[in-house]
Structure formats: C-alpha cells, structure tokens
C-alpha cells in the first residue's frame, strides 16, 4: 500500500469497497436472470462466444495496460475496473436499459422505441454506470487513480469489461434473431462485426474519455476549480454524445456506416489519450529529474527512467547479481516521482534517505 493510500481516510474507502461489492452482486444477479435461460437454451453457442471473447479480453487488457505511460496500472485496480465493467455495470445496465427503452416505446410507440431507444438510453445509463465504477475505484484505491491518465486507462479497462459482456450478449441474441438454424455461424458473424469492425471504437474508448474526466476530478482531490470541473463534465458529456452518435439510426445499412462511427470514436479517444499522456509524461519527467538530483543521478539518466525501454537499458548496465536490487530502487524512484507529479510529497523526501531511493540506476 502506498503512502497516499495509507493517508486516505479509511471509512470512505471502506464504504466505496462495500458499495462496489454490493453493486457487483446486483449486477451478477441481473446477468444470471437476464441471460441464464438463453445460455441454457444455446449452451454451445454461448461457450463459443465466451471462448472467443476471453481471448479478446486478455489481449485488450494487455494492450490497455501497456498504453499507460511509465508503468502499467496495478493488478488490483485493473481487476477491479474490468470486473466492474463486466459484471456490475453491464448487469445493472440490463435492468436500466430495459426500463428506459420501455419508457421510450410506451411513450413514442414500438417503432420510435426500436429506432431511437438505444441512442436515447445507452449513453445515459451505460456511460454513467461505467464512470461510477471508476469513481468508486478512485475512492477505494486512491493511489491507483491520481489523474487523467489513470482515469483514462482504468476507464478503458472498465469499458473493455463491459464491451466483452455486451458482445457475448449480442452474440447469443444474434442466434435468436437469425432463427437458431445455424448458431455457430450467427455467433461468428456477430463477433466479427462487434470485435473486428466496431470493437476499436466501442465501450473501451467511450469510457476512456469519461474516465479521463474522472481523473481530472480525482487529481484535484474532488475539489476542482471551475475550469477543471468544466473539463471533467465535458469529458463525460463527450463520451455520452459519442455513444448517442454511435447508437443513432444514422449511417446504417452498410458496413461503412458503423466503420465511420467507430473511426470517429476511436479518433476522439486517441486525441484525449495524446493530450493526457503528453501532460503526464512531461510532469513525470520533471519529477524524475528532481528525484534524480536527490540521489545524484544525472538528469538524462533519471528522465530516461520514465520509459520502459529506458529502465531496461539502465538495468542492463548493472551487473547481473545487482539487478534485482537495482530494479527495486527503480520502482521506488518511479513511485516517488509519480507521487511528486501528482502533488503528493513522499515522507522524508526533503531530507532524503527515507524513501529507499538512494543509488537508483
């Protein structure tokens, strides 16, 4: 546990953990109720979808963890984000979406509800539910989410978990829509479309944008100034608007339409990532330079530690028997730099020697 998390008040963290678990149980029950019978009716098709999507999930987690600059997010935060998206958010979304689409259909008729219901429902319910998980992780594991980059990556992981379960639901439902005469073919076609065509710009990208907004608020210890509040609100609103655009009954009929929508969402997420990454890397380099000065490490060597390759190169220059200790010192220095970059001072930083950072490679 990092110093930051030690200092954070225990009761809100505990409460966040309890709420996280409670909503997770509710989501799991909802998934079981909504999908249990369909899975039992189409066990082979469901198994096929789950096997394919397990590979997608593993690859997606690896890519998104790698995308975080400097170092990957912690295992607990990663697991919490994926689990929230896959179980809590997706299970609750099934309840909320059914209810809200029902409202649109009752108020505007079956045709209106079918055509516009998803675009008027999913952005509201799903983006809010996914972002709520990122907020809970930020409260429960404050050292895991200190700024926009953390929020973006954990948001993307939350969205990825959600996306994989949604893909599984659509794959099994496609068997029903297709008449259940060739289940494996229906599942394969659904997965090709939802993973291969729209996957690159789906929930992971939308939640990455919203998560960056959550990260802006977390960085300000939930007391943001007006500018930061607007930026965070804009990020969440942008995710919702893009989701609405994605689900709207426009650009339909051919594969080109969904591909265009996917490209737009992906480009927006990439732009947010580029901005957040650049700012974060600049701050972490400055913090590493300061940390390097404290241990008489040349500035260039200290700044090089911000990159994975830089750290590997530094370790290669250390005799083999000393590498584990050197790697440990690297981790300590990085942790200290990340706290410094987040505006959290490390105990003993001013007098040195208290943070275990002396002699970093």
């Amino acid at each position, binding site marked *: 546990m990092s110093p930051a998390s030690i200092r954070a*008040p225990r009761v809100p963290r505990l409460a966040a953990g309890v709420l996280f678990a409670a909503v997770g149980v509710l989501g799991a029950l909802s998934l079981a109720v909504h999908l249990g019978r369909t899975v039992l009716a189409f066990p082979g098709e469901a198994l096929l979808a789950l096997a394919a999507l397990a590979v997608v999930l593993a690859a997606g987690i690896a890519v998104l963890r790698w995308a975080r600059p400097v170092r990957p997010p912690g295992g607990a935060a990663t697991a919490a984000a994926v689990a929230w998206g896959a179980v809590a958010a997706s299970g609750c979304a099934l309840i909320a979406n059914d209810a809200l689409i029902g409202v649109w259909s009752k108020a505007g008729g079956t045709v209106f509800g079918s055509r516009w219901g998803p675009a008027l429902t999913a952005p509201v319910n799903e983006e809010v539910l996914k972002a*709520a998980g990122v907020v809970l992780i930020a409260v429960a594991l404050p050292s895991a989410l200190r700024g926009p980059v953390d929020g973006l990556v954990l948001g993307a992981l939350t969205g990825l978990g959600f996306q994989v379960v949604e893909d599984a639901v659509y794959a099994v439902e496609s068997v029903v829509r297709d008449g259940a005469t060739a289940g494996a073919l229906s599942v394969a076609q659904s997965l090709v479309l939802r993973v291969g065509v729209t996957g690159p710009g789906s929930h992971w990208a939308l939640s990455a944008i919203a998560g960056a907004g959550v990260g802006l*608020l977390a960085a300000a210890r939930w007391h943001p100034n007006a500018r930061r509040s607007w930026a965070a609100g804009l990020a969440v609103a942008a995710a919702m608007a893009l989701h609405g655009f994605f689900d709207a009954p426009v650009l339909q009929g051919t594969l080109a339409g969904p591909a265009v929508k996917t490209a737009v969402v992906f480009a927006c997420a990439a732009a947010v990532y580029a901005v957040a990454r650049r700012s974060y890397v600049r701050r972490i380099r400055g913090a590493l330079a300061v940390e390097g000065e404290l241990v008489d490490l040349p500035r260039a060597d200290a700044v090089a530690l911000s990159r994975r390759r830089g750290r590997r190169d530094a370790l290669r220059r250390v005799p083999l028997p000393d590498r584990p200790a050197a790697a440990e010192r690297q981790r300590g220095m990085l942790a200290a730099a990340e706290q410094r970059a987040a505006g959290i001072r490390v105990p003993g930083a001013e007098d040195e020697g208290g943070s275990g950072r002396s002699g970093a490679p």
Partner: protein
Amino acid sequence: MANGNAASAHVRDPGWTPLGAAAAAVALPLLAWPLAGALLPDAVSVPSGRPVVVGEGGGYEATTRFEPGWTELPAESSEGELLVYRRGRVLLQVRVVRPPQGAPEGAHDLWRGFERITRAWDPSARFGEPSETTGDAGAEGLTGLLEVDGASGTAAVFPSPGGGFAVEFATTADRFASVRDVQAAGRVVDSVAFSEEER
C-alpha cells in the same frame, strides 16, 4: 510542511462527495426508469381491419390482420424482431427471424430453431409434431402444439417465399382464457400474407 499539506489535502477531501455521486449514479437509472415506466400504460390498441406489417426482406413484406380487442405491448416489442400482443388472457408473440446466408432456412429447420428460441424464454416449452398449414392468403408453413407450464397454445412458422426471413407465431393461453380469444389468435395467424414490396 510538505507532509502537512498533503495530509490536509486528504482531510479536506475524505471522499464522501464522489462516493455519494457514484451511489446516486447507480441508483438513479435502476429506480427512476422503472418508476417512470410504471406510470405509463402497458398496452396500446391495435388498429383492426387493415394489414399490419410485421417484417420485410428479400423483396417481400409480411403482414397480418387483427380483429378489434387486441392490444400491443410496446415495452416488450421491438420493430422488425418481436411484436407482442394480448387479447384477454391470450398472448401472441410474432417474431421475425433472418437466417444468415448459408444457414438452413427450410420450414422444418426454422421450426426446430423456433422451439429452441422459445425455450430461451421458457425452459418448460415443448413443441409438438408440426403439420403443414396454409394461411388465408396462401402463405405456406408449419403449425403445431406448444406446451408450457401453466399454459398451452400453438406455434406456427411461415418462411417468406423470397427467402431471407420468416415469420414465427407463438400463441399461449392459460386455462381461464376464453375460446373466442383463442380463436381470434388463430385468425391472426391465418391472416399472415407475403406480398412483393413496391419498388
């Protein structure tokens, strides 16, 4: 001094505000939308005497006709996929399925698929042996008994003559349903018609 600043920052933001916001964000859609839905009527009247389009594809359009007394359940229905109707204690589901290219789409294949689909909604569902049937307008398909716990009825499958889609009917009625309502459901099924779409 530095440690004091960090500590005061954390004291200033114990985390209750974001926690409350997250709790509200979860609770609102789970409570508000079902409540709003409960305030709206569940069913709307179905226009009688004129054809209702239930599906289209491959240059053909499928329609059925309803007599007075039928209502549609919009919250249960989805355009082009599933339309749910009710009359008294009789429930009529009209499903449109679209087998993908290369998939079997013969009436007997669709019948077996329809039984599996129905079991996804009610695991107790059992279809009887199908027999050939012809609708009032000449649509050819299969029909047979449908048994579920606490109710019974009929199922029917009508592939489009142009291929690409089929219309499937599932009628269920509990033992208190009136004979008139059950017969009315049969007439809806018999009214299915496929016509070439105007270009």
